[in-house]
């Protein structure tokens, strides 16, 4: 309730300020955003197969049909001077309500930038770092042809994966820029630093007597790890942004100080406590448009330093490495109608389903296709079918079928 009141107060103040300054184009506070509402009907089935550990197979199917205010984002942008901009992003997702409760309200970005030249722009504050093509725009739904994003970026599917294991979630300081290489081709770069993954942040009220972590934390959300995230991206882009490619990288630590529970880890459901594990991510992205076709693809490889863990004979076979691949093809029939299809595959080797006795192709497949219509400027009506299933697994069968229809509006 308090959060809702605070949000309302912020909005009232911001809108009042905005109206007062509307006539002054120079110093305007720019307020814009988008919303996406959808109706989806889904069927989730799982089957646990008979094995040495599970003598009695079982399974079930669940069906649901639901409307949702998928996401609303409000952006506030204020030029501070000729080279500096302040930017704030307020995000509510999953039909946010503190009453039910449902969804969440978040400020995923709040930063100030200073552009020395095209070659160097500095950003300080909470920001979405440049990692592959999608991380920086992962919550900008109108930029995508689909309603439901690839699994690593989709908040509605967050209970199936832990995105922070694959992508850096935020950073606090970033240097970025671009320079012309040759006609219509620019080299771009970004380097950033931030906290290690979100699960290291203190989530227990300060002063809790029964929590060891809270005893040393000064505030909620404090990074309780000495390791920081370091990352960057090097790429090439053309002026119309119809061609873009790059390699990305990060270094941080994976939080394995708590048990991780997942249906994908069978038969034990939980991963062992392994401590803080050094982790490297490598990414590659490619996107281009050619006449009516738009293509985008990316790869994320996550590699861990297992040497310390494997000194313990009980964990000699532990492998935390994982990868994610995704590709989407969109065909624009004209300016108003389009169709798309995408597929992704990810494999987490810390799950039992890809361990000994399971085929090497085991992992989670997501396939989706659909289309969209722009009846007028700034509004798109989209329809999408999505299927996700576990491939080649001796323990578990898991299928999600989902049909969604939605409206995306920019304001």
């Amino acid at each position, binding site marked *: 309730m308090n959060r809702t009141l605070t949000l309302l107060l912020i909005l009232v103040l911001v809108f009042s300020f905005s109206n007062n300054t509307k006539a002054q*184009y*120079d110093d*305007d506070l*720019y307020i*814009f955003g988008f919303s996406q509402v959808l109706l989806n009907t889904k069927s989730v089935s799982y089957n646990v197969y008979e094995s040495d550990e599970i003598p009695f197979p079982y399974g079930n199917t669940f069906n649901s049909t639901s409307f949702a205010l998928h996401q609303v984002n409000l*952006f506030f*942008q204020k*030029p501070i001077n*000729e*080279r500096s*901009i302040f*930017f704030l992003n307020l995000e509510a997702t999953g039909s946010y309500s503190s009453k039910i409760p449902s969804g969440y309200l978040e400020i995923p*970005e709040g*930063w100030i*930038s200073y*552009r020395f030249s*095209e070659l160097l722009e500095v950003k300080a504050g909470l920001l979405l770092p440049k990692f592959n093509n999608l991380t*920086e*725009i992962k919550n*900008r739904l*109108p*930029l995508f042809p689909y309603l439901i994003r690839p699994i690593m970026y989709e908040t509605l599917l967050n209970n199936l994966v832990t995105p922070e294991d694959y992508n850096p979630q935020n950073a606090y300081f970033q240097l970025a820029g*671009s320079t012309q290489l040759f006609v219509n081709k*620019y080299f771009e770069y970004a380097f950033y630093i931030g906290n290690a993954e979100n699960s290291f942040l203190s989530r227990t009220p300060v002063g809790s007597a029964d929590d060891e972590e809270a005893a040393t934390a000064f505030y909620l959300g404090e990074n309780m790890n000495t390791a920081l995230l370091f990352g960057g991206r090097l790429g090439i882009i053309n*002026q*119309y*942004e*119809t061609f873009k490619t790059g390699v990305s990288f990060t270094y941080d630590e994976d939080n394995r100080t708590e048990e991780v529970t997942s249906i994908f880890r069978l038969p034990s459901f939980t991963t062992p406590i392994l401590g803080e594990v050094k982790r490297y991510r490598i990414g590659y992205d490619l996107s281009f448009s050619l006449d009516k076709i738009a293509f985008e693809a990316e790869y994320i490889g996550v590699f861990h330093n297992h040497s310390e863990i494997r000194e313990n004979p009980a964990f000699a076979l532990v492998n935390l490495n994982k990868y994610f691949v995704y590709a989407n093809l969109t065909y624009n029939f004209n*300016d108003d109608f389009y169709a798309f299809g995408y597929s992704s595959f990810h494999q987490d080797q810390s799950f039992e389903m890809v361990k000994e006795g399971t085929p090497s192709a085991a992992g989670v497949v997501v396939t989706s296709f659909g289309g969209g219509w722009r009846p007028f*400027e700034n509004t798109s009506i989209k329809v999408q079918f999505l299927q996700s299933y576990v491939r080649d697994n001796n323990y578990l069968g898991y299928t999600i079928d989902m049909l969604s229809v939605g409206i995306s509006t*920019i304001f």
Partner: protein
Amino acid sequence: MNKVTLLIFIISFAVVSNLTAQEFVENIAVIVHESIETNLLSEKDLLEIYTLSNHNWSDENRIKVADYKGENYLRILFYNSLNLTPRTIKKLWLRAQFTGRTVPPKVVDSISDMIDLVKNNPGTIGYVPITRVPPEVKVIFEIRNDL
């Protein structure tokens, strides 16, 4: 869009919006506020400005891009001359706007609104038919209409 389709579109638009024949066949003037030091732009400069990859004038003032709302015939001619389509530019601007890279371009409804905006806001760049250029603004680029 080929030239015949474009011509049909322009004529239809002109009929609907009561534009004069003179207005839709004339050249386009790219205009800026008179305080801008730059006197002449190259096509490359113009492209950099409208693709939002150049953010400041030579005198440090922030470049403020202005454009028309909807499927304005001037808009289509203007972007055709830069080998762009309104759809491409819209996509590019949305990404720039949503990532906070630059201030959002100002969108106006009419030629007179465009003239008022450029006239009253230092740093603003826009475009109008050449015969509508008022004395208070500076022309820094001219696009020939070959139709």
